[in-house]
């Protein structure tokens, strides 16, 4: 993957940090059912200050830093931790930079970037938008009721970044992004161990009439829907990049295994069937990686990103399904041991494919767009 000089330098620093502070501990955190998010993020902020500088600068520098981070996280083989860091640094922090009010930026931007505050994010697929929590305007405050699913970073969060449907008398209902302090009354975090993301569990959060100041709304009142959609697409594109980069790393490790593993007196890799299967995976991963890269960069295009994020997420979903299946398979029973990184990838991939950007959600958007295109051509 090509980066600018600054990006290359940032990538080097990030990889060194993650190799020392994250990768050796992932297996232990998986067993414990959580990773020390604040500690890791604080340490990251002090060890690699260039990352925060890039995020603060916004624009293309910020998007390159986001790409660098997603790439650097691939060797950790823990899609949950990668999603957790990505939510905090690539999704929440940039939203504050670009759309947060001066007061919100002043109060939260530095603590979020420095890892002093952990922020959760819930962004359901569009298909589920009707099931978003609602927020009713009462005496200058928004009262939130309902349930959010697939929430990343919810356990131990200080702040919940939550897309809600805001009911406004005479206007109707519009989505908006609300920052909800975790100490507010009536918040219940339901952590159920799921098939994957053991070190950074995905949770359900329930709001039972939680009252929040209207000043905690990010962006203008009438831009909530666009903001929610924009961030959803950004996360799809970043997720696609993360999945493609991790799949690429997994294929490289699998190749090494197949070189070393001897079967019938010769390396497993000597079998043409194995060579071709790996080659197909590598080719597919390379194409997906490029599509995901463009999908991330496209977030800053003046004409808009089109459907690149949707296409990238769908392609990446298909890629990880194939690579998870192939790599565990080629490792035989070794890939089926629960504590192995192969099993972890297999489990995490299952959740990553379903969680935020499920196949049918993204395909529906591609299909709708294609149908519109045909109509335009006839016109």
């Amino acid at each position, binding site marked *: 993957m090509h980066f600018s000089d600054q990006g290359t330098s940032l990538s080097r620093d990030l990889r060194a940090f993650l190799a020392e502070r994250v990768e050796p501990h992932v297996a232990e955190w998986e067993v414990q059912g959580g990773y020390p998010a604040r500690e890791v993020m604080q340490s990251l902020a002090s060890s690699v200050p260039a990352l925060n500088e890039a995020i603060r600068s916004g624009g293309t520098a910020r998007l390159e830093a986001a790409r660098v981070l997603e790439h650097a996280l691939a060797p950790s083989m823990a899609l949950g931790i990668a999603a957790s860091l990505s939510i905090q640094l690539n999704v929440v922090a940039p939203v504050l930079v670009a759309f947060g009010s001066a007061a919100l930026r002043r109060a939260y931007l530095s603590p979020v970037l420095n890892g002093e505050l952990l922020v959760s994010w819930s962004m359901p697929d569009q298909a589920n938008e009707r099931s978003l929590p609602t927020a009713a305007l009462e005496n200058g405050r928004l009262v939130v009721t309902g349930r959010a699913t*697939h929430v990343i970073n919810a356990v131990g969060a200080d702040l919940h970044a939550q897309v809600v449907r805001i009911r406004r008398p005479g206007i109707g209902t519009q989505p908006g992004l609300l920052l909800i302090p975790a100490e507010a009354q009536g918040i219940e975090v339901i952590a159920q161990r799921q098939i994957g993301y053991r070190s950074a569990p995905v949770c359900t959060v329930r709001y039972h009439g939680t009252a929040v100041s209207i000043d905690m709304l990010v962006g203008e009142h009438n831009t909530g829907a666009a903001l929610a959609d924009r961030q959803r697409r950004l996360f799809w594109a970043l997720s696609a990049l993360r999945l493609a980069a991790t799949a690429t790393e997994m294929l490289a490790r699998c190749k090494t295994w197949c070189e070393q593993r001897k079967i019938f007196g010769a390396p497993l890799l000597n079998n043409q069937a194995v060579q071709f299967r790996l080659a197909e995976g590598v080719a597919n991963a390379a194409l997906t990686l490029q599509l995901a890269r463009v999908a991330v960069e496209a977030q800053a295009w003046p004409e808009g990103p089109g459907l690149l994020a949707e296409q990238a997420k769908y392609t990446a979903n298909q890629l990880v399904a194939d690579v998870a299946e192939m790599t565990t*398979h080629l490792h035989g029973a070794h890939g*089926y041991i629960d504590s192995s990184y192969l099993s972890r990838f297999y*489990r995490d991939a299952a959740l990553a494919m379903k969680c935020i950007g499920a196949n*049918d959600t993204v395909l529906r958007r591609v299909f709708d767009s294609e149908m519109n295109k045909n109509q335009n051509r006839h016109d």
Partner: protein
Amino acid sequence: MTELNTFAQDIDQFVRTDVLPFLDTWEQEKHYPIRKLIATLGQRQVFARCFLTDQDAPQRYQYNRILHERLAYLPSGILGSCINNHLDAALSLLANHAKGEQGMAWRNDCVQGRRVITLASTESQTGSDIGEIKTAAMEQGGGYRLNGSKWFISNATIADAFCVLARTGTGKGVFDFSLFLVPSASAGVSVEMLDTLGMRAGTIGAVRFEDVKVDASQLIGIKGMGVPLTLKQFEKERLSLAIRSRSHGLYHLDLLKTYLREDRLRAAGTRELGRIESRLAEHACELEKLRVFIDHVIDLRFRGKPVADLVASLKLQATRTTKSIAATLLQYVDDSALVEHGIAARFFRDAKAASMAGGSDEMMLTLISRTH
């Protein structure tokens, strides 16, 4: 047909009363009472009607098939696997080749479910390559001394005895290996449980043999015939795997139908019902194709025809189909099924094991390509 129907109903009853009510708890605890379940099936004369010998009447195959189909029509893949290892991999070896009073006693106890037995051939560094097996039985004083270790052995943690494939010759040829019946209580045998991605019954393990004294009477079959006998067992295991995979897939396809009928998918936010319906129909066609193919292979086997390549094709296709159904279920069911012990997550994890057990897909493809 009546007897077969009664047998099928008995197995269904066993599943309803002895298995289904407890399945979720066993799964969460990563512990299935397999010994107790095998004992129950043995007492009900299930194994007596199902174990396969080299000269079997056709009806025995039908009983065996019914047992595997019924035990796999569950939200769990491990129960059928444990029964298969006891019944088809190990017990049928004893049924054909047990020797002396001791051997016959083991055979009878296993048929009655009083003892559990399993085949131990795989090693950590060998996988499907039996020629690379390192576990060795060195002749000593009219008997043998067994040293080595086996890995990823089904029923390892509960077995009373292992049918161990060990090197008795110096080369890598077909006749350099023998099978031994080794009780797990023998001095020098130790077992360690392996925590696996799926198939969480707490029964898969690694077995170590340290200078274990083995009497010549513990040989299964004759010396040097270990590989041919093991390969024969693999064919039975693969056929059973295919039958179980299809049935396991069918259970989950039926579950998806129930979800559709109850409109649970729409409630969970899935809009693409047309797409689910077409996927469901595709899977139904694949499962029907497999059912017909199973009938065909069993019929050929009755008539003494060689079916190794057809069994390989069947196993390959059945396990692939089941994995594909698991992927469909994972995409469409509601979130509750994605929790670690939820049905979709469990199916996704368990279905993966079937394609690895009894020889990988590549082994199946090699077998098929060699024959054609």
